[in-house]
């Protein structure tokens, strides 16, 4: 008797003292749980506050199998409301797993319906974690720039492309947590609530994008894709004085609401990732540099060799034979020989320095993930004829964002600004947490040199220039066309395949925006594959609508002498 009593006593002491921690932990595991309070991801807004990315409340449905009393009934109800793997769920419940994730991102109304159905049968063990699903209300519009979210290894949504990735840290916020205890039926014992930390919701990101302009750009780009059927196309509008990106789009594109349906090709944001030879649009660089170095004036005459120039044992041609042209007209007529002679006069090293000062050969600093630096070989890798080929935009790889940024130097009186797409970080109440001011990178050209190039670019769009189709009624425009043969991956150039570009700004005096339009290898170029025939009209169509949207006053008055005010009432009807 005494032995038995001693044995029980020993066991009791052993459990209470030696194994105390073990059993206390086991008990706590059953009843105490750390509940995560999820932070809401911040929204992405355009410059006027229009919502571009937001969160839709959803619920994640989880099961604590230790609280389930009628597994078969529970599985039946769940399978009738949700799309679940029944054998897997049955096995998990049978294994009494304390945390089984049944389904993610269940619509709020479906979850409420399920909750009511379970309450009616008094079934326990099902819990609801409130969560959010990212929505992009404008579907594919601005999709490349916004990016999308995906689950990481820690089962958390993180940005994988675009602004979602670029500003992930600010958008994400910090989750809170609460330590809770439950009774044997699984119900929380509120009076035993422990540690509690509130979540901090993510900040909102306000972009420099203006959706009114973005919609114009996207619709004109769609129209151009349908009309010319190119391999791809891109358009960027940038405010030259500040470097703010007002609109940015490329085709093909994808809907960030359904990223898994996107093809690899459509995921490429060609506005910042496309590597193209800029063609004649690059001629603003040697011309501007020559003005800035005071090597020439706009009136200086250059002999253009009547259309054929022998240099380094190779021939350089103009598309038309020109005799002597003023430097101004070299740009207006887009003479390859004239610009090559300007670069030769400047010298390899100096010309290279100017190319770098215009921002080529390095990332612009926009910040969007995936941006490439382009290709600009250092001088010691140049061939004997590079000094004649680079000035006309060959032997150099650039991105559309670099091209519009370089043009903005001319539109901005010689100053290079850093392209900017994030305007500010704000909290949920709209208070600015961090503003992003425009950043001046460097002065590339003197004001006079920039003005001289500007004057030529205005004439490019006038009769006699190469881009008369870039004209916008009532608003003088300035710009430069580019038509470059596509380089072949095996070396040399592909016959009959062209990249057509137009870079320009509008209105020419005090420009509201600078733009680049790039059309890659149109298959339906009935009039001819030239930048002035295909890219320039797209610029003009965007310009017509953008000037109205921005409510700019036309230089040529369109107001009738006796306006009939009664007819000026806009009509907006709904049915």
């Amino acid at each position, binding site marked *: 008797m005494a032995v038995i009593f001693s044995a029980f006593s020993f066991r009791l002491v052993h459990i209470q003292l030696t194994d105390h921690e073990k059993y206390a932990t086991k008990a706590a595991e059953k009843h105490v749980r750390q509940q995560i309070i999820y932070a809401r991801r911040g929204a992405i807004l355009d410059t006027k506050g*229009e*919502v571009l990315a*937001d*969160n*839709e*409340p959803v619920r994640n449905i989880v099961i604590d199998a230790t609280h389930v009393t009628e597994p078969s009934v529970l599985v039946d109800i769940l399978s009738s409301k949700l799309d679940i793997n029944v054998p897997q769920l049955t096995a998990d419940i049978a294994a009494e797993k304390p945390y089984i994730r049944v389904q993610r991102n269940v619509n*709020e*109304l479906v979850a*409420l319906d399920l909750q009511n159905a379970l309450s009616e049968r008094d079934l326990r063990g099902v819990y609801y974690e*409130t969560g959010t699903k990212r*929505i992009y*209300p*404008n*579907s594919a*519009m601005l999709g490349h720039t916004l990016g999308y979210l995906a689950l990481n290894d820690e089962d958390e949504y993180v940005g994988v492309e675009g602004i979602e990735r670029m500003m992930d840290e600010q958008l994400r916020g910090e989750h809170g947590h609460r330590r809770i205890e439950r009774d044997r039926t699984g119900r*929380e*014992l*509120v*009076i035993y609530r422990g540690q509690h930390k509130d979540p901090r919701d993510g900040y909102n990101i306000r972009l420099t994008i203006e*959706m009114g302009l973005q*919609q114009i750009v996207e619709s004109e780009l769609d129209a151009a894709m349908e009309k010319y059927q190119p391999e791809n196309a891109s358009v960027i509008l940038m405010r030259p004085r500040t470097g703010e990106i007002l609109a940015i789009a490329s085709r093909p594109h994808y809907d960030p609401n359904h990223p898994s349906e996107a093809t690899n090709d459509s995921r490429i944001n060609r506005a910042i990732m496309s590597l193209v030879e800029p063609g004649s649009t690059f001629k603003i660089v040697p011309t501007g540099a020559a003005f800035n170095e005071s090597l020439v004036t706009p009136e200086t005459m250059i002999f253009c060799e009547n259309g054929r120039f022998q240099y380094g044992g190779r021939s350089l041609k103009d598309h038309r034979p020109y005799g002597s042209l003023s430097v101004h007209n070299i740009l207006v007529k887009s003479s390859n020989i004239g610009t090559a002679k300007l670069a030769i006069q400047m010298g390899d090293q100096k010309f290279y320095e100017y190319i770098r000062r215009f921002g080529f050969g390095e990332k612009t600093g926009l910040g969007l993930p995936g941006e490439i630096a382009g290709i600009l070989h250092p001088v010691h890798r140049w061939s004997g004829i590079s000094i004649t080929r680079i000035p006309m935009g060959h032997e150099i790889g650039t991105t559309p964002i670099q091209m519009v940024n370089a043009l903005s130097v001319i539109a901005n009186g010689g100053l290079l600004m850093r392209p900017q797409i994030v305007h500010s970080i704000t909290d949920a109440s709209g208070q600015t947490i961090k503003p992003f001011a425009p950043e001046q990178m460097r002065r590339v050209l003197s004001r006079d040199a920039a003005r001289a190039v500007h004057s030529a670019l205005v004439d490019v769009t006038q009769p006699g220039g190469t881009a008369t189709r870039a004209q916008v009624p*009532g608003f003088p425009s300035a710009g430069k066309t580019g038509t470059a043969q596509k380089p072949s991956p095996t070396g040399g150039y592909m016959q009959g395949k062209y990249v057509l570009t137009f870079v320009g700004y509008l209105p020419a005096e005090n420009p509201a925006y600078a733009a680049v339009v790039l059309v890659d290898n149109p298959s339906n170029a009935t009039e001819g594959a030239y930048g002035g025939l295909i890219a320039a009209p797209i610029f003009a169509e965007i310009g017509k609508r953008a000037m109205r949207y921005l409510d700019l*006053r*036309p230089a040529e008055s*369109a*107001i*009738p002498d006796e*306006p*009939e*005010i009664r*007819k*000026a009432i*806009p*009509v*907006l*009807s*709904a*049915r």
Partner: protein
Amino acid sequence: MSKNRRKNGNSIEISTFAKWGVIFTVIAVIGVSYVSMKNRLHQYGEQRRTLERELTVLRETNRAMASQIVILCSRDALQQKLDSGFIQMIPIPDDRIVRLEMNPQRSPSAELQAVSNQMGF
């Protein structure tokens, strides 16, 4: 005789009874109060949980509605309505716009003057 009777009789210790009675009563009241308060605390906790749940449902429903409004008011949705003819917009031609501009050069005499409509001034 009466003296002996008094000697053999047992006196009742009222004070002792009263003392223990009070002690038991106090303990009992404390015990019952403790249990009662504990139960009430659980009830309040339960009420709090229910209210929190209702609040959460309301908040989430509100957010769900807000996100629906965002979707329905998006450019994409409006464009679809426009394309389907549900809404119609007629652009205003350029020659039907009248722009009124302030004259930037004004003489000092033409500056706006403060006026009063009150009687007697």
